[in-house]
């Protein structure tokens, strides 16, 4: 791979043949766990000189961490996962077989390969509505829901309301605590 004419100047690397070029990743096709083509690697990301993951250009540009690499060959890189971002753009059908729209975005808490819900848009000019993950039956080539469209949207809205009220309660508790503390301080000063 490196040829015989490479002079070695290093303390840590004894044999170059046991190492790998970062550039060897570039151009490889990335397949998901089920064999879906995600795209091609166009760059490699390092952190303090250590490989962290690769940048893939397909329908969308995505960064995939090296912890999700399953195996690789000369031409391809196989992943352990089905990237959640691949759902974006897929059609959504409800339990009655009605086409609701397309997935416009995902509701995610962190950058892990999970999602809490999806945002669906019927057309460009319409507002996106949320559907929670528990109402989704299948999310592969198309997204199939467990419930009819109206019920799924209503349950998602109810869940959102609940979370909002929880957050409000927490905030009010915090403010009440701080106000009580300030009152006690004021009394002490007096």
């Amino acid at each position, binding site marked *: 791979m490196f040829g015989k004419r490479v002079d070695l100047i290093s303390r840590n690397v004894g044999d170059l043949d046991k190492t790998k070029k970062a550039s060897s990743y570039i151009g490889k*096709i990335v*397949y*998901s*766990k*089920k*064999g*879906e*083509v995600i795209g091609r690697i166009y760059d490699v990301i390092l952190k303090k000189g250590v490989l962290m993951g690769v940048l893939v250009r397909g329908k969308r540009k995505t960064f995939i961490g090296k912890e999700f690499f399953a*195996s*690789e*060959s*000369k*031409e*391809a*890189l*196989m992943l352990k996962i089905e990237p959640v971002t691949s759902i974006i753009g897929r059609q959504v*059908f409800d339990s*009655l*077989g*009605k*086409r609701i729209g397309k997935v416009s975005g995902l509701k995610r808490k962190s950058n892990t390969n999970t999602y809490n819900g999806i945002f669906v848009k019927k057309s460009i000019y319409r507002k996106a509505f949320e559907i929670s993950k528990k109402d989704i039956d*299948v*999310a*592969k*080539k*198309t*997204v*199939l829901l467990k419930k009819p469209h109206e019920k799924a949207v209503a349950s998602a809205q109810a869940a959102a309301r609940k979370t909002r009220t929880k957050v409000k309660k927490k905030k009010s508790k915090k403010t009440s605590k701080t106000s009580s503390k300030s009152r006690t301080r004021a009394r002490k000063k007096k």
Partner: protein
Amino acid sequence: MNKKSANKNIITCDEILGKDAIDPDGSSLGVITKVHVDKKDRKLVGITVDMGFMKPDLYIGINYVKQFGIDAVFLKKVPHHKFKGLKVLSEGGELVGKVKNIVTENKNIKEFEIAGKRILDGKFFIKYSDIKEIGDHVILKKSHKRVSKKERKKKNKKKK
């Protein structure tokens, strides 16, 4: 004759034709082009799905239809025919060949007949248990075994 509004469960042929047929994995097989009716029993027997350009039409019996939806028809099972023509990859992602045929036993997939990447590779068989994943591509396990046509014939002769 009853009016359509009298029974909401009745749909017309027009409402079925042109709809997408969707398998349990959520992938669209194609568009419904025909509806088959038994002349004697006067009942719906099946549907024909147009799988696309250069692909043969697929007949699906009514027993495999789960639901006639508003915009799509849902199926109960993934048809084996869907796997024909899929590319076969090794565990590392190298191209091995294409699925040429599917060998079934009691309606279950037993083996895949695969045409090799090169002409010299010829055709060979791979057991269903040696397959890791099936999706857009068929992915083989690391420890898969290729059985050539000759070997298979020999085995079958021994069995007989």
